[in-house]
C-alpha cells in the first residue's frame, strides 16, 4: 500500500469511526449481550439471577400465552400488510397521474404516517367509540345500527384486532405510497404505449406490465411492512392493552409486559430472539417467493 493509499485508508476509518463505534455499541454488542442475558433467569425487580442455558427458550416455546401472542401477530400481519399494500398501490396509481394539484394530495396522504403514535391512538379511540364515535355515527346514518345497538369495537374480542388493522392501513399508507410512486417512475412509458397499440385494456396493462415491473418495490414494501407489523407496540399499549381476552396481545406487547411489567428480562430476551428468528424466516420466505415470480418474468 502506498503512503497515499494508507493516508486515505486512515482518513476513511476516521470518518467512518463514530458511526462504526455507535453501531458496535448500540447494535452489534447488544445483540450479543441479549443472547447472553437470554440464558439467564433474571428478574431485575428482585435481582434473582440464575443460569438456565436454553431454559428460557424451552419455556417460551411451551408457553400458551407466547404462542397466543405469535398467533395474534401473525393474524395482524397477514391481514394488515397485504391490505395496506394493495391500498397504497391503488392510491399511488391514482396520484401518479399528471393532474393539477396532485402533489397536495400526496402530501396530505402522508400526514397520518408522521403523526404521533400516541395522538393517533387517542384519535382512534374516538373513531371507534361505542355511541358517538365516527364509525358508529356512520353506521347509524347507514341504518346498519340503531340508537340502542351501537357496536363497541374496541372492547369486543372479535373486533378489537380489526381496529388495529385499520389503524395500520391508515398510518402505513404514506410511506408505502411514496415507495410505489418511486417504483412507478421507473417503468418506461414505452411499454404502455406498445401495449395500447396492441389493443390491451387498462386492466391487462396493469396485470402484465405494472405489477411485474413493481415486483422489486413490492418486495421491499412487503418485507419492511412485515418487519414493522410483527413488532407492533404503541397502539396496543394505548388502546387495547392486549385485551380484550388477550386477543390483541401481540408479540411486541407481550415482550414488553414480560420485560418491563413482570421484570423477567432473561425470558423476555429469549422471546425477542425467537421473534427475530421468526421475522427473518418470514422475510426469507417472502424473498424466495417474489424472486421466483421475478424469474418467471425475466425469462
Amino acid at each position: 500500500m502506498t503512503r497515499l493509499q494508507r493516508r486515505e485508508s486512515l482518513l476513511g476509518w476516521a470518518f467512518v469511526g463514530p458511526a462504526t463505534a455507535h453501531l458496535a455499541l448500540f447494535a452489534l454488542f447488544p445483540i450479543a449481550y441479549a443472547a447472553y442475558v437470554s440464558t439467564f433467569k433474571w428478574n431485575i425487580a428482585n435481582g434473582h439471577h440464575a443460569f438456565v442455558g436454553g431454559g428460557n427458550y424451552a419455556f417460551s416455546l411451551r408457553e400458551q400465552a407466547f404462542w397466543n401472542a405469535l398467533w395474534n401477530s401473525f393474524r395482524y400481519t397477514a391481514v394488515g400488510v397485504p391490505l395496506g399494500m394493495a391500498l397504497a398501490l391503488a392510491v399511488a396509481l391514482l396520484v401518479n397521474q399528471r393532474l393539477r394539484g396532485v402533489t397536495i394530495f400526496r402530501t396530505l396522504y402522508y400526514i397520518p404516517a408522521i403523526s404521533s403514535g400516541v395522538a393517533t391512538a387517542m384519535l382512534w379511540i374516538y373513531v371507534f367509540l361505542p355511541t358517538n364515535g365516527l364509525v358508529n355515527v356512520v353506521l347509524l346514518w347507514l341504518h346498519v345500527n340503531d340508537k340502542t345497538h351501537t357496536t363497541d369495537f374496541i372492547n369486543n374480542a372479535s373486533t378489537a384486532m380489526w381496529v388495529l388493522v385499520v389503524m395500520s392501513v391508515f398510518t402505513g399508507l404514506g410511506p408505502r405510497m411514496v415507495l410505489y410512486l418511486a417504483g412507478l417512475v421507473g417503468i418506461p412509458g414505452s411499454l404502455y404505449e406498445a401495449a395500447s397499440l396492441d389493443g390491451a385494456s387498462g386492466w391487462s396493462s396493469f396485470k402484465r406490465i405494472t405489477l411485474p415491473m413493481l415486483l422489486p418495490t413490492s418486495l421491499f414494501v412487503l418485507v419492511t411492512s412485515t418487519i414493522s407489523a410483527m413488532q407492533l407496540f404503541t397502539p396496543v399499549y394505548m388502546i387495547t392493552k392486549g385485551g380484550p381476552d388477550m386477543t390483541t396481545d401481540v408479540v411486541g406487547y407481550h415482550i414488553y409486559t414480560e420485560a418491563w411489567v413482570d421484570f423477567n428480562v432473561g425470558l423476555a430476551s429469549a422471546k425477542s430472539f425467537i421473534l427475530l428468528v421468526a421475522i427473518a424466516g418470514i422475510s426469507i420466505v417472502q424473498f424466495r417467493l417474489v424472486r421466483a415470480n421475478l424469474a418467471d418474468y425475466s425469462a
Partner: protein
Amino acid sequence: MSLRRWWCVLLLALAGCQPSHNPNAITLRIATWGTGEDDSDYAKKCDAIDHEFERENPGVKIVRETIPEQYVQAMVMAHVAGASPDIMMLDASSAAVFMNNGIVTDLAPIIAKDPEFRLDDYFPNVVDIARRGSAVYAIPQDFTPMVMYYNKRLFDRAQVPYPDGSWNFERFRQVARAVTINEGEKNERFGYAFSNWMPGWVMWLWNNGGDVLTEDGTRAAGSLNSPQNAQTFRFLRDLIEVDHVSPSPSMTAAMGVDPFVSGRAAMTISGHWSLIDYKNAPKDRNGQPKLDWRELGVTAVPHNTPLANTVMYESGYAIPTGCRHLDLAWRYVKYMTSRRVQMDYNSSGIAIDARKDVAQARAVDPLERAFLPLVATARAPRGSRVEGYDFVETQGASAMSSVLLNGADPLAALKTAAERIDLEFAKR
C-alpha cells in the same frame, strides 16, 4: 447547510435556558397513584395539606407525582434506574415486591430514635401489614376491612331479623332466600349481590377452610384447587343458579348499576369506600334515593370456620431507599400520619383511619362504629407478601367466570387457574 445551522442555533439557545435554581430549596417528590384530576375537593384538600407543610418547613417544596397507570411497575423501574421519589404511597395488595426486595427503607431504626412518634397510635394488625420481622417498611394511613353490608329496610320488609355475624354458609343461604322476592320483573329483590372481583370474594374461600396459595405463598396447586374451594365455588354458583338469590353476571350487567346501591339487593360484600357511593345513591322517580345509607348495617362475612375471616386493604407511606433527604422525608411522613392532618384528610370518609384516635373520633354514627370490631380479625392481603399476586387474582376471576358463564366444573376451573399461576410464578 442552513437547516443544520438553524438547529445549532436553536440548540445553543435552549442550552442557555436553565430553570432558575434556588440553591437552598429542597424538593420532596411524592409518588402516588390515581388520576390527577385537579379540581376535585380531594385534590384541593391534598394541596392545602401540602402547602401547610411547606409553610411549616420553609425552603421545602412538595411535588406530588400522580402515576395514573401501572404504578407498581413505574416505582420498580424508578428504583432500578436510581430515580426513585422521596416518598411513595404503598398499597398493601401490591406492596410485596417493594418490601421483599429492599426497595423501601426500614423505618424501625428511625422510629426507635424518634421520641415524638409512637407506633402504637395505630391499629397493630394494620401496622403488621408492613412488618417483616423487626423491620417496619411503611406507616399506614387508612384501610378498610371487607364486610357484609345489609339493607335494613329490605330485611324489615321481609320480616327477617338482622344478621349478627355468627352465621355459617347454610344460614346465610337461608337468610338470603328469605329476603329474596322473585315474582315478576318489577318486584325482584335479590338477597345478595355477588360480584366477580376476587379481592371481594376471596374471604369465602378462607371461611370454608380453603386457601389460595400454600402457606409460603409459592404454589397454587393443591391449595387453590382444593375440594373445599370447589365446594365454595359450587355454593356461590348455586346462589345464582339454584336459589336465585343473586343476579347472574349478565343480569347485573344489564341492570347497568350495582344492585345494592340501587336498592335491589339486600346484602353485598364490600369495603368502607362504598359508603361514598351509598351516600350518593341514585334516585328513583320520586326523587328519593334508592338506598338510604342510614338504613345500612355491617356485619362479619359468613363463616364455616370457627372464627370469621376477612381481608383488609390498606395504603400507607413508605420511603424508597436512595432517598436523598431522609430526615425531611420522615418529617413529612410523620406530618401526614399525625392526628392533626388525618382528622382533616380522613373527613372524605373513604376509609377508616389507621390511627386509633382518629378512627374512634370519626366513629360518630352506629354504622361507623360497627366497622371497628371487625378490624381485629382482618388479615393482610396476600399481595403484601407475595409478589405478582395480581396475576393470581386475574386467574381466580377467570376461573369464577368460566364456572358462572360457561358452566365449567369448579374443580377443573380451579385446577387450570392453579396450573397457570404456578407456571407464571416459575418465571421469577
